[in-house]
């Protein structure tokens, strides 16, 4: 287009439509040389000639065409006339056809109506036949167990039957059908009640029954009873393997059979009955689940399930399934019960733990007793025994706490729940407190049996110290350990502070009992020796003393061995211990027996609570032994030599025992009392010179 516009604008283009010959010429004349103009002229002439000839050719050609067209038109005109005639004939024929066809349709109308009537009669007859055949059809279907078809057929026919049921011919059919359907219902119900129908069959039967317009409540009852039958079967199976399968196996089986079926039953129930109020279901489910839980608990208690790992895995599986179930059932008691099962298992585990710890501790103790018995008093390293007992006990407790923490693993379905955390914390504390309380009780029983059952005093000392150690450090350590473990296993779980006091009270009373028992045991042993020696001797005919009697040495030895044993475990504190008993007996000059002296001194409590301290323990034993000496001396009568013998004995005891205990006044008072009593009971009360007594004691 640009070109053409150029062409248009260019008046100099010889082929363009705007060609301006004058301008062209002017331009040519202006720009070109003569020669060029000459050439141009020649060129234009040739071109004009060529164009002229070409135009002539074209004109000829067009002319020829025009002539042939004229001829064709002439031909066509003649042909059209023929066509017109034929068209007229056609329209005539068409008119004839129309009239004929109208005639024919008039004729056919009657017969068509007849056919229609026949057709509808035929349909009705078909239906009637269906109705008449219905009983047999139903029977057949029922015989072939095609209950679904039977019910479908019946529901189809039912409307007709209801509509025409009052006509006599239908009445018989209807009653027959009703009978059959009654039978069907009965069979269906029976099928429901037979235990070996599967859960889906069950659902199907119930669906059919519902289509047959059974009332819901009775159906529900039937459904539930039959379901219960089935579940009972499962329960029986499960309970039969409770004693033989391990927990994983059992839970697997339970999940796959009973709980799966229960799930199907419950969802079917929902589908079928759309029971919004859920009247029966929770009760039913509870009934079943209670039994399941019972079985589960039985299974958990089997000895094979002692391993924590296996228990936890089984529990986890079970709990998962239960949670899923409880969503279906949406029953509060069951989900609560599921939690309860876990909590119970944790508790059960804890019980096992502390029972194990206790029995192990008892075994250890038995070994200690044997080793003490075999070694004799000399070489036993009590501290060592105490340490091993204590460490063993602490380790066992800590190990069992750690074991219980396994219940808090993340991967478990109940792992990080706060209730689970609480249960584990509770269980752990139970392990700690029960173990320690058991320990206390055991120590108390052992301590109170001391005479009949020969528990050595070393063991009593060890146990007392153990209780004290646990009281002072153990409880707190374990408590802190528990808090730490809980923080690690269940971060963010707020753990309650535990009441450590009651445990501590148990431990401290046990320690006190053991110490008292030890003191009395040692004291009585020495007292017995002194008593027998004083009562059996004829003090009236005693020879002149040559040295302390052998029994004094034995008494000293007994007290010393207890003292050294106590020193291993109960080192004397730097400051003088405050003995729980009151101070010294009335000390007085042996020569004067005047009640006046007693007024100014305090009473001695002989059997009094012993302090947890070497000196206090020794004081306690000394009191028991020497008070017995005083009392026995008062039952005898002494000659002069007898009195002097006793003087030597008392002096010897004073020398040897003064290093024990820390209350020399107590020792002296008791010994002086013994000597004073002997003087009173002497027919010729003359004491020896103190220096001579010294020499005799040295020599002896």
């Amino acid at each position, binding site marked *: 287009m640009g070109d053409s516009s150029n062409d248009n604008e260019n008046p100099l283009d010889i082929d363009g439509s705007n060609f301006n010959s004058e301008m062209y010429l002017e331009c040519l004349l202006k720009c070109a040389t003569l020669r060029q103009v000459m050439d141009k002229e020649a060129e234009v002439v040739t071109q004009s000639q060529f164009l002229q000839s070409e135009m002539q050719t074209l004109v000829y050609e067009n002319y020829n065409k025009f002539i042939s067209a004229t001829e064709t038109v002439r031909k066509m005109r003649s042909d059209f006339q023929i066509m017109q005639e034929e068209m007229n004939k056609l329209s005539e024929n068409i008119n004839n056809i129309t009239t004929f066809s109208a005639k024919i349709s008039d004729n056919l109308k009657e017969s068509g109506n007849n056919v229609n009537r026949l057709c509808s009669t035929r349909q009705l007859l078909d239906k009637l036949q269906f109705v008449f055949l219905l009983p047999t059809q139903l029977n057949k279907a029922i015989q072939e167990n095609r209950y679904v078809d039977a019910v479908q057929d019946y529901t189809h026919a039912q409307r007709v039957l209801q509509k025409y049921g009052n006509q006599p011919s239908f009445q018989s059919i209807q009653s027959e059908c009703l009978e059959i359907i009654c039978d069907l219902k009965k069979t269906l119900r029976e099928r429901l009640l037979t235990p070996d129908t599967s859960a889906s069959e069950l659902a199907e039967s119930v669906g059919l029954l519902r289509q047959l317009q059974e009332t819901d409540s009775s159906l529900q009852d039937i459904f539930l009873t039959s379901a219960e039958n089935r579940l009972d079967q499962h329960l029986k199976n499960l309970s039969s393997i409770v004693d033989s399968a391990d927990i994983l196996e059992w839970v697997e089986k339970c999940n796959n059979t009973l709980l799966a079926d229960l799930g199907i039953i419950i969802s079917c129930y929902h589908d079928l009955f759309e029971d919004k109020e859920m009247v029966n279901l929770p009760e039913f489910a509870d009934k079943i689940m209670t039994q399941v839980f019972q079985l589960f608990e039985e299974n958990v208690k089997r000895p094979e399930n002692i391993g924590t790992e296996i228990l936890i895995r089984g529990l986890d599986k079970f709990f998962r399934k239960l949670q899923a179930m409880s969503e279906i059932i949406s029953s509060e008691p069951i989900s609560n019960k599921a939690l309860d099962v876990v909590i119970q298992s944790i508790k059960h585990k804890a019980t096992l733990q502390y029972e194990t710890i206790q029995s192990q501790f008892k075994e250890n103790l038995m070994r200690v007793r044997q080793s003490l018995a075999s070694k004799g008093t000399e070489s036993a390293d009590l501290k060592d025994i105490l340490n091993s007992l204590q460490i063993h006990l602490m380790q066992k407790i800590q190990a069992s706490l750690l074991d219980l923490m396994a219940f808090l693993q993340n991967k478990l379905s109940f792992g990080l729940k706060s209730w689970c955390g609480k249960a584990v914390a509770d269980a752990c504390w139970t392990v700690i407190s029960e173990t320690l309380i058991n320990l206390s009780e055991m120590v108390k029983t052992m301590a109170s049996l001391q*005479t009949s059952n020969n528990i050595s005093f070393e063991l009593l000392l060890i146990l007392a110290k153990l209780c004290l150690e646990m009281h002072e450090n153990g409880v707190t350590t374990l408590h802190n350990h528990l808090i730490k473990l809980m923080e690690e296993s269940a971060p963010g779980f707020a753990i309650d502070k535990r009441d450590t006091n009651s445990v501590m009270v148990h431990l401290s009373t046990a320690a006190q009992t053991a110490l008292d028992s030890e003191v009395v045991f040692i004291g009585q042993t020495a007292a017995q020796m002194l008593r027998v020696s004083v009562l059996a001797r004829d003090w009236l005919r005693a020879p002149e003393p040559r040295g302390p009697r052998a029994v004094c040495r034995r008494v000293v030895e007994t007290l010393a061995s207890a003292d050294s044993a106590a020193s291993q475990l109960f080192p004397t504190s730097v400051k003088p211990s405050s003995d729980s008993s009151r101070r010294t007996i009335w000390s007085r000059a042996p020569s004067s027996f005047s*009640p006046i002296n007693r007024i100014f001194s305090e009473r001695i409590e002989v059997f009094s609570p012993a302090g947890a301290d070497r000196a206090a323990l020794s004081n306690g034993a000394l009191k028991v032994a020497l008070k017995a000496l005083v009392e026995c001396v008062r039952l005898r009568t002494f000659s002069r030599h007898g009195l002097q013998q006793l003087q030597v004995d008392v002096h010897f005891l004073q020398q040897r025992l003064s290093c024990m205990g820390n209350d020399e006044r107590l020792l002296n008072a008791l010994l002086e009392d013994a000597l004073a009593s002997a003087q009173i009971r002497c027919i010729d009360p003359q004491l020896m010179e103190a220096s001579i007594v010294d020499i005799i004691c040295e020599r002896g």
Partner: protein
Amino acid sequence: MEEGNSIIYGLEHQTRALSPQYGESDAIRFLIGTQSLKPNTNQVHVVELEEDTGALHTKVFKHDIGEIWHLRCSPHDAATLMTTHNAYDPDTCQCTMGVSIFKLPTTEVIPKDLDDLSAIQGRNAEDMELLKTITPEKPEEEIRCAEWHPTDSNRIGIVLDNYVSIRDVNTGSQVTSVAPEGRARLKFTGGKWSPQGHCQFAVLQDTHIKCFDTRTDCVKSSWHIDNAHRQLARDIDFNPNRQFHLASAGDDAALNIWDYRNSKEPIFSRTDHSHWVWTVRYNTYHEQLLLTGSSDARALLTAAASICDLDDEGKRLSQVLEDGVLQSYEQHEDSVYCAEWSAEPWTFASLSYDARLVLSRVPRHFKYKILL
């Protein structure tokens, strides 16, 4: 004697023999025997508390036959008493023990006129009439105690080291003897007639209690409580009202009450003393009250109400007192070897080795609780 205040009476010599005077139900009268090895120094003191005035009256009698280890007034005659005594014979260098029966010239202690009063204030020891002295078969045998037969005034039971000798008072001859078979090495520490059996004599042998029927051959015990105490058993007393019940005390500092038909476990047990318990006594009228004396220098009044409030079918009647120590009497400063109820139901005496007699009363509020 006001509430909580006890009356103290001191003697010159050591004492370990005390007896209430029986037969005179209205008088609070106790007899004390002294224990001194010095010849001709021993005495029997008769102490009477005049209830109206609260005054204490005493009479002293000579007991030159030896030191008194044990003293019992006769339940049949208020003026008759029996002592177990010991004397040293310098010639043989030996102690001899014996049992003597005396008769007091009068049971009256409270002076009637000024002469009486001055005589008593002079504390001149009077003489008693010696009725009979019984000695053991072998002179060196030790006698623990001698007990009057509860109903037969001619019978006494003497407990020796390892047998019990039943004697006739008038002739002094042995009627029968009780010696258990075997275990002869375990010595007797004491004994008592059973008030119900009349012929049954219970002895303390080491830690055991054994009762023998004196009518039989006396070899096998008719009942026994083995290991009644963990240490030596020191004393027993029978429940005066309730058959089969008895209280025992011992060196384990315990007071136990037993139904001897079932001797495995005591039906009541308390350890309130802090040393050996030497004596235990039921209150004659109120069986829930028990008195104990111990070498911790205390006398304790203990209630054992829980086992006494049961009626015959074992049903519990209303319990008026809490079990346990009602009151501790701390006026003694040496071992209390004797404690006795008086014939009057609410007064008792305790006697310590340092010759101190303490007369005390059951606190009034306990008394009212029991009575009302």
